[in-house]
Structure formats: structure tokens, C-alpha cells
């Protein structure tokens, strides 16, 4: 596609439910990143993929969070047993590779609201 696509754009869920957030990176981009942005805050790194492997998962806040990627394509971020503090915008980004001096291209994010 022309840009990074994320779905859904908005998700309202009840505390304790599981949610899946989807990211479609730019075609041909091997690197894919997930960030979280709480209201009024900067971007908090969650995880990145090189191809379908995840060399750095250090930002995942707890074992309720997991992510996977199919080949060099779609990625899914899953949050189990959602809590109110999970409410945030979840941003996905891709780049041609994880080498130095590569800028990231961001999607429009998923606004997650946990009631």
C-alpha cells in the first residue's frame, strides 16, 4: 500500500477483554515497530520486528502484551485482559530496514479506550 495502515482506528473495550490491533506496513519494508502514546506523553517503544523475528521486545509492559508478524507483512499486537491503564494510542511504523539512518513511516494509530 501507499502508507502504513492500522486497524481499527478506534477501539472501545471493557476491562478484562482481549483486543487485537493490526498493522499493515509499507510494502517491502522489512522493519516494523510498535509504539504506545498515552495522553499528553511521548512515544513509548514496545517492540520491533526485523522480518518476522522480534529481536527487541524490551518495551512490552507485561506478559499481557504480545505481538507477531507474518513474514514481512502484517503484524498484530494483542493485549489480553485489558486494564484501564492500557488506554492509549497504539502507533505502528515501518522502515526499509533497521540499519542506521533510516526514518520511520508511521500509521495513523489505533485509539484504544478501556472502560
Amino acid at each position, binding site marked *: 500500500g501507499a502508507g502504513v495502515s492500522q486497524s481499527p482506528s478506534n477501539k472501545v473495550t471493557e476491562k478484562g477483554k482481549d483486543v487485537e490491533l493490526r498493522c499493515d506496513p509499507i510494502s517491502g519494508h522489512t522493519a516494523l515497530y510498535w509504539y504506545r502514546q498515552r495522553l499528553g506523553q511521548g512515544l513509548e517503544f514496545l517492540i*520491533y520486528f526485523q522480518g518476522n523475528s522480534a529481536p527487541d521486545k524490551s518495551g512490552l509492559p507485561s506478559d499481557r502484551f504480545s505481538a507477531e508478524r507474518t513474514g514481512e507483512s502484517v503484524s498484530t499486537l494483542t493485549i489480553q485482559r485489558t486494564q484501564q491503564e492500557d488506554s492509549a494510542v497504539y502507533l505502528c511504523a515501518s522502515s526499509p530496514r533497521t540499519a542506521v539512518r533510516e526514518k*520511520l*513511516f*508511521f*500509521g*495513523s*494509530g489505533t*485509539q484504544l479506550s478501556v472502560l
Partner: protein
Amino acid sequence: EDKVVQSPLSLVVHEGDTVTLNCSYEVTNFRSLLWYKQEKKAPTFLFMLTSSGIEKKSGRLSSILDKKELSSILNITATQTGDSAIYLCAYQGAQKLVFGQGTRLTINP
């Protein structure tokens, strides 16, 4: 621990003013420093800086990196209401971008 600090966190000015946004970093394995503009949700790329002292310009926006001082500034001249946004600074480490908390800039007509 690597970190990026931006200042001010919030800034309100009148249309036509010039603003300077600051970014300082404490990082290992520095590769580059990037600026993004975030108007709604998706941050959009502005500049990538790798060499100290070389100014990057795009219209009314410019940015420069000072490796000695571990800092960067983003200048916007003749501000317009469309410049209202959150401006994010990030450093590129070995594998990922690490962001500062952003500066929320509001331009009043």
C-alpha cells in the same frame, strides 16, 4: 539509561512569531537525531541530523545538531496556525528510535 529530553513541554505564541524548540540527549551508540511533527495521530518526518553544525532547512523550518553539547534545536520562523502540533525529537540508537516527550506548540491567530 539512554534518554531524550525536550523543552519547553508546551509553548503558546502568536502567528508570525519565531520559535525555538530544544532537544537534549544522553545516549550511547548515537546514530542520528530526528524531528517529527504530530498534528493528529501519525507523526510525520521533518529532519534527520547526523553531522554536527550542519543546518537542515525546509521552508520556514530549520534544525541543527550540536554533538558537543548533545543537543539539537528546531526553529520555526514566521509561524502560522498550521504549525500548531506536537513536535517530537528522537534519537536513533542501534535498532530503534527513542522519543522525547514532545513539545506542544500552539499558534494563536
